[in-house]
Structures are given as structure tokens and as C-alpha cells.
């Protein structure tokens, strides 16, 4: 059916009148069928499965779940882990802002001054991230370890007060997040800055804009969609991340990702894990919809 319809629309040729009405109405739906199926199968169905999981009661022993329409689970769990949500939110926010501040000059420099070596510089930026995520983080644990080479040197040379340590603190977690998600910020920013027409800048200077004004009035507004895309691409995974906290964090900075991981893999508390995951997903979706509302859905397809 789908094929026959599309076969009858070669390059905007008007379809025969007798079947035109039906075809005309159905065509958009049929054309979006593959994408729709994709979305339904890989997003909506799992989402509903996860939602239904929040209504069940599961045995911690056998893992068997029965539907008990337990509507209280989701609000209860979310309420219980409020603090971890707030921690995750703050950490992810800090990490994203740090990433934006660090990668904007890098992306700007590569885009405007990279010249023929642009690709080389981009690769240089990405090479450290060819190593597995977990291994990179473990190496940081090794570096930041209190008796590791860095801190034993700092302590020996009295460059830091005794008792100063980084591993196990919130600083270490935020730094780990910022480090691990840097390419997710840098690349969309680069794409946004790279497509700015240099003549626009020349025009700004012709109109007596100094460098600062040219930046705030021309470059920044033109890169806003890129900044927003970078923000989403960094913030969403950082928000749900648990590796950094597990490896670099201490006792007082548990993130929601760790709680979800524990719920599923240690406590066998699937309803709680599902509830938290649903809320995490909802927050991510709100971000994407906000993006679409503010900047239009077209920019999503360009950057995300």
C-alpha cells in the first residue's frame, strides 16, 4: 500500500482524480509510517513498559513481579530520592556550564583560525575520547588518588595544605563529568560557529562594532541554537550519569543514576528503578520540547 502510493507521486505529478482524495489524506501518514513505527517500537512501547513496571510489586527474592496498580510508588520513590535528583541536577548543570565555557573558545578558534588544519585540530580534540569511558574515569581516580603521584608531589612540596584531597568530593565528580562530556559540547558549538559567514563579522566591524560588540551582537546570537544543542547533549547524559560518581565520588554526593543502577542491579527493586527512570526521561523530554518551542524544530535536526 505504502509503496503503491509513493509510486504514484513521482515528483509532484498530480494523481488521478478518482483515488486522489483518499491518497491525498493518507499520504502524509503513510509516508511517516517507517519513522512512526520506529518511534513506537523503540520509544513508546519501552516507555509504556517502564511506566507499567512502576505499578507492580516485585519480590526481592525471585524477582517475580505482579501488577498491583500501585500508583503510590512513583511519587513515593521520587520523594524519597529528592535530594539525589537535586544533586544530579546541580552537578550536571555545573558540568555543562564548565564545558560551554571551556569549549566555546576552542570551537571558536578551530572554526575561525584552524585554516586548512581544521580537521586535524578536531581529531586532536577527540582522540582522548577514543578510550573507553570507564577506563578514562578510572585513570582519573588513579591520578587524583591521595597517595598518587600528583597529590603526593603536591603534599611533599607543601603546595597544598595537609589533608587537602580531591578524590571523593563533589569537585571530583563535577570535574569528571565535565571532562567526559566535553566533546558533546565542543562539536555542536563548532558546527554552529563554523557556519557563521565571515562577511557578517566584516560588516559588523564596518559598522564600527568593536570586537566585544561584534561578539555579543553577532556571533553569540548566531550560535544560540548550537549552544542550546550543546547544552542538551551534555546535560541530559550527565544528569543520568553514574560512572563518575561511583568512581570519583564520595559519601555525600550520590547521583540519581547510582540510585537507579542500584535499584535494578543490586536491590532488584524494579518499580523504584523504573519510577526514577521515567522521571529522568520526562525531564529530558521537557528539555527537548523547550528547545523546539524556543528555537524551532528545524534547528534540532541540524544539531542533534
Amino acid at each position, binding site marked *: 500500500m505504502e509503496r503503491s502510493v509513493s509510486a504514484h507521486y513521482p515528483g509532484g505529478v498530480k494523481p488521478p482524480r478518482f483515488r486522489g482524495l483518499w491518497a491525498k489524506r493518507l499520504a502524509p501518514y503513510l509516508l511517516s509510517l517507517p519513522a512512526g513505527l520506529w518511534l513506537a517500537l523503540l520509544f513508546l512501547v519501552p516507555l509504556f513498559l517502564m511506566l507499567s513496571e512502576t505499578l507492580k*510489586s516485585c519480590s526481592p527474592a525471585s*524477582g517475580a513481579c*505482579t501488577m498491583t496498580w500501585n500508583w503510590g510508588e512513583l511519587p513515593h520513590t521520587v520523594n524519597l530520592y529528592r*535530594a539525589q535528583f537535586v544533586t544530579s541536577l546541580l552537578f550536571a548543570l555545573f558540568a555543562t556550564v564548565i564545558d560551554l565555557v571551556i569549549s566555546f573558545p576552542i570551537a571558536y578558534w578551530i572554526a575561525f583560525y584552524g585554516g586548512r588544519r581544521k580537521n586535524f585540530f578536531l581529531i586532536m580534540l577527540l582522540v582522548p575520547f577514543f578510550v573507553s569511558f570507564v577506563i578514562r574515569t578510572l585513570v582519573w581516580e588513579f591520578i587524583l*588518588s591521595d597517595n*598518587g603521584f600528583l597529590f603526593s608531589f603536591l603534599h611533599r612540596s607543601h603546595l597544598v595544605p595537609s589533608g587537602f584531597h580531591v578524590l571523593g568530593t563533589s569537585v571530583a565528580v563535577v570535574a569528571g563529568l565535565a571532562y567526559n562530556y566535553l566533546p558533546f559540547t565542543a562539536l555542536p558549538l563548532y558546527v554552529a560557529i563554523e557556519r557563521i559567514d565571515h562577511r557578517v563579522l566584516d560588516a559588523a566591524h564596518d559598522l564600527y562594532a568593536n570586537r566585544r560588540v561584534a561578539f555579543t551582537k553577532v556571533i553569540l546570537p548566531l550560535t544560540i541554537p548550537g549552544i542550546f544543542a550543546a547544552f542538551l547533549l551534555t546535560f541530559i547524559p550527565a544528569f543520568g550519569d553514574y560512572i563518575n560518581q561511583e568512581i570519583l565520588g564520595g559519601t555525600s554526593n550520590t547521583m540519581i543514576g547510582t540510585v537507579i543502577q542500584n535499584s535494578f542491579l543490586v*536491590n532488584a*527493586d524494579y*518499580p*523504584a528503578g523504573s519510577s526514577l527512570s521515567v522521571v529522568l526521561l520526562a525531564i529530558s523530554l521537557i528539555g527537548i520540547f523547550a528547545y523546539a518551542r524556543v528555537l524551532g524544530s528545524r534547528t534540532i535536526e541540524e544539531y542533534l
Partner: protein
Amino acid sequence: MTERDNSEGVLDPSFWRGLTQPRVTRRQALGLAGTGVASAMFLGADAGLAGAALPNAKVGTKSWWAKQKLHHQLNFANWPYYIDVLKGHHPSLDYFTKTTHIKVNYSEVIQDNPSFYQKIRPSLAAGQSTGYDIVVMTNNSVQLSYLIQLGWLTPLDRSKMTNFNKYAGPLIKNPSWDPGNKYTMAWQSGWTAVGYNAKMVKNPGTSIEILFDKRYKGKVGMFNDPIELGHAGLLAVGVEPATSTERDWAKAAKKLQLQKSDGIVAAYYDQSYIQHLKNGDIAVSMCFSGDIFQADLNSKYKNLTLLLPHEGAMLWTDNMAIPLYAQNPLDAMTAMDYFYSPLTQSVVEYYDDYICPVPSTKQQLVHPTGWNKAALAALKPEIGLPTTVTANSSTVFPTPARVAASKSYYTFKSQAEIDAWNGLFLPIIQGA
């Protein structure tokens, strides 16, 4: 831990109903992680309690065992640092393979009871092999009780327990958590005690209070298992864990919460604490007795010292078991009994230094009489201490007085108690 009483079979019917029906409020606590149970049954909304046959009903009988054949391979899941190692080999397993032609795939995959249980549970629930023929679970964990009560373990072959019957010590024979050794044979026992770095800790004293000492702010390691953490808290507030009440638990939780909010705790660790203790990231930590002994023997970490606090140390036992649907049960049975030979134990124990399940190993360590002579000699340069040190160690072959002074874990009597316990101690570990 043999003195611990059994509380099975004294549950009243209303209690049963409450347990076997799903309850909406069951998860008021933060979920259910490692929780210690001896033999009370409380499996929540599980099938199998309503009188239906357990999945292992027809397994492990005499006729079933008679049909089993050796496959000459064995998949053994154990905890890290729990068996003799020499240049990447395990001499005790090498000898086993040499004499029985059973190839052993020994993997150190168990970091803690709850998460390992979650790894094997889906296979067992689906009626499939877990991929392991021997697993090692701790008696204080609720997971071992789950495995027994859900019928997910293979009953052992009585006729293949000759070494066990002959040599097993009273500490682990016919234990309260598995009467008659129907499903399990102990691997080793140990204490959860205090370990410290003597270079960083000058006056350790004899009390568990060292874990709460402000002098070691940010340098104290605690365990992330709520059972272990809670019991350390109970000892610290001066309560006998085995007879504690919910009010005591609250007191212990308050003490631990304060310890955390004062910034004394560096982190709540799993098995990884030992690495952090070696690295000097922490000065003092809750520990498993054998880990410290092993590190201590290793000349590089001479500073690590074990402290069995005068308030008492928790005594636990890790148990070998054959999961249901295991592919090589007869090979597993053969290996389990092989580890009860004093000759084998001498090699394992020389490296391992937990509490030995076979008391007569002591003589074998001093005067080896068989293949263990060469194995012990080969291990010696690696370990760097004469075998008599292990033989005379009171943490390997404890005196009856020392065992009696050890503490037993609290025996949970209902799911509600587990929930209450976890509701108190899990937020300390997982809290923001």
C-alpha cells in the same frame, strides 16, 4: 556461629498470610540489599510457598546423582583474593586438575552477595544454567536463604562428602543456616573487623570507636553492605547484635549518620576498600580479617594491621553451593570435597589466612605429608613467611574462646524487619 539458634517453624499463620500476599507498602524502605537471615522464611509474593513443588524437588536425590557423569570441566565463581596464587596459577586447582582431569575455570566474579545474586537470578528463574557449577555465598546474606528457599540449589551428594565428614571443623559442620549441610559446604569463615595503616594511626587502642574518631576525619572506610554497616553501628553503641531490637538499630543508625555528617567517612566501600587502604586514601577501615593478613604478609604493605575490637567482631562464613541447572554437578561435588582435604587446605590457607574450615590443616602446614610439600615450598618465596606463622595464627585457627567472643549477626524474623533495617541503614549509604 553454631551457637546461633534456629527460629524456623515457629511462625504463626497470620504472619504467613501477610508475607505471601503482595503488599503495597512493602517497599517503604529503600529497597532490599544484602540482609542477613539464618533460616526464617519470608519470600514476599513468591510462588512456591503455596505448596507447589520447588524446582529442585527431583534434583539431588540418590538416583539423580547416580545418573550424573563427570564432564571434566568446572566453572567456579568465587570472591577475589580467596585462593592460593602463584605466578598467575592456583597450585591447589592445578593439582586438582592433574589428579582428576577436571579442567577448572576459576573466576573471581563475586564482589558482594546482592549484586551477584542479581546476576544469576534471571537464569535460575528462567530454568537455565547460570554458567557456574559452584558459587560462594555468605551465611549472613539474605540471598543465600533465597537460594535455599526458592529451591535454586542442588542438594549435595551425601556419598561424595568423605573428606568433609572426616575433616570438617565444628564451626561449619551442620551450621544453623544450612542444617545437615544439605546444600552447602563452607569455603572459609572470617571476621568483619577493623584494619588500619600503622603509619597513619599511632594509638589505635582496642575499641571499634577508632572508626568514629575525629582524628581520622575523611580517612575512614565503612562497608556499603547495610548488614555489615548496621552491625558495626550496633557494636559501637554497645549492643549485642544477635539480640538487638529496632530501637537499638535506630541508635546505631544515628551514630553512623553522625559519623557521616561529621565528614569522618571517606566512602562506603565494597571489596575495593583494601586497595584504598593500601593506597593510603584511608587510614582505618572496616575490613575482612583475611584481607589484612594477606596484605600484611606482602612486604610492601607491612603497615596494615588487623584490630579485633574488644566490643567484638562479626563472624561470618562463606559457603560453596551448586546452583540448580548447573551443567557439571558431579565435577563440582568432586571439587568441593577435594577442598576438605587438609593437604589442599594447607595450600589455600597458607595464602589465604581466613578461618580454616579444617582444623587438622594446622599439622599439614607444619609437617606437610603429600603433594602439598612441594606446593608450600613453591609458595614460600611469594609469601615470604614460614608456614608456621599461618599454623600458629589465632585468626586462622582460632581458639574456642576467641570464637565464643565473636558476635553473630542478627537473625531477621520477617520481611518487615528487613525493611526496617534497610530503611535505617540504606539512606546512610545511598543518601545524598
